[in-house]
């Protein structure tokens, strides 16, 4: 019976075998020319890359950027020295690719959004009140919340935006953010302080005078 249970199709066995190969071995094999095995790394870490990208990019840009992240990772695989874990190395590439997206996007943007729709203003007022009318986990409210967040961040530079998202919204330490962005810790601290002030100023302006 036990034998019957263990007996699987050859394809399934091969897949299981691939799943158990350590990252470093896969990397070595890819570098020796086994391009196809890179797909195992992609399957293994697609979730991680998507999770990072979803936090930093608009939904319609996630798939294209995920593709770019893995292509970049493949091209830089030779530089992976194993000093950090492969998933961490991939997270760094994901964050930096997101940053590159915003730099390009801000360079090409025409005019920033000028007004906040009435429904979003209502969300703002509701979220600051002592007794919110509806929970912010409500689906439509969630969408408004994300649009307000996007509207608020749209005025910041690509650098300020990334630092706000990492340090302030995701609550990473200055050191962690610096490592992900490839900046010095001092630069991250100064920039996050200034960006946060800008963000607070904008929020106050919206709430006090309307937009």
């Amino acid at each position: 019976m036990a034998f019957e249970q263990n007996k699987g199709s050859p394809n399934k066995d091969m897949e299981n075998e691939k799943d158990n190969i350590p990252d470093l071995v896969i990397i070595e094999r890819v570098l020796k020319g086994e391009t196809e095995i890179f797909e195992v790394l992609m399957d293994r870490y697609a979730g991680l890359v998507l999770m990072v990208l979803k936090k930093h990019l608009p939904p319609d840009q996630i798939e294209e950027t995920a593709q770019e992240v893995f292509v970049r990772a493949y091209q830089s695989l030779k530089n992976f020295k194993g000093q950090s874990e492969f998933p961490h190395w991939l997270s760094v590439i994901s964050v930096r690719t997101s940053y590159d997206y915003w730099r390009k996007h801000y360079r090409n943007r025409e005019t920033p959004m000028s007004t906040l729709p009435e429904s979003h203003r209502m969300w703002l007022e509701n979220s600051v009140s002592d007794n919110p009318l509806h929970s912010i986990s409500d689906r439509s409210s969630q969408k408004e919340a994300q649009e307000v967040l996007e509207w608020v961040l749209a005025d910041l530079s690509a650098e300020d935006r990334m630092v706000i998202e990492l340090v302030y919204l995701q609550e990473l330490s200055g050191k962690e953010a610096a490592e992900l962005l490839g900046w010095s810790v001092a630069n991250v601290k100064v920039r996050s302080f200034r960006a946060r002030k800008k963000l607070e100023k904008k929020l106050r302006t919206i709430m006090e005078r309307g937009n």
Partner: protein
Amino acid sequence: MSFSDQELNRLQKALKKAHFDKEQVDVGTVWKWDAMRTIRNLPASASSFSWLSEWNALVWKFAMTTAALLLVLSTWSLQMGVDPEMEMAWMLFEDPVEETVNDTFGF
């Protein structure tokens, strides 16, 4: 309407939640196929890239070794009391043809 620090904190908390809720976006899997297709078309350029960087490293090592040798040579010349510029000039521009001509004609 004045906006208190407490209200600002509440708003910031709501925005933080909005940021985390972004994880719930659904993403397809087609991009994986596209990524692998792009990668399959890369190996030639990827390998030439690595060859290039190895070549760069070699050139860099050669340049550094030459610079180090020159430095040692000029230091040695200074210690021997020879003007390093003259020493180098002597090494590089000594003309064996002139010597032969001098020998032949007895100048």
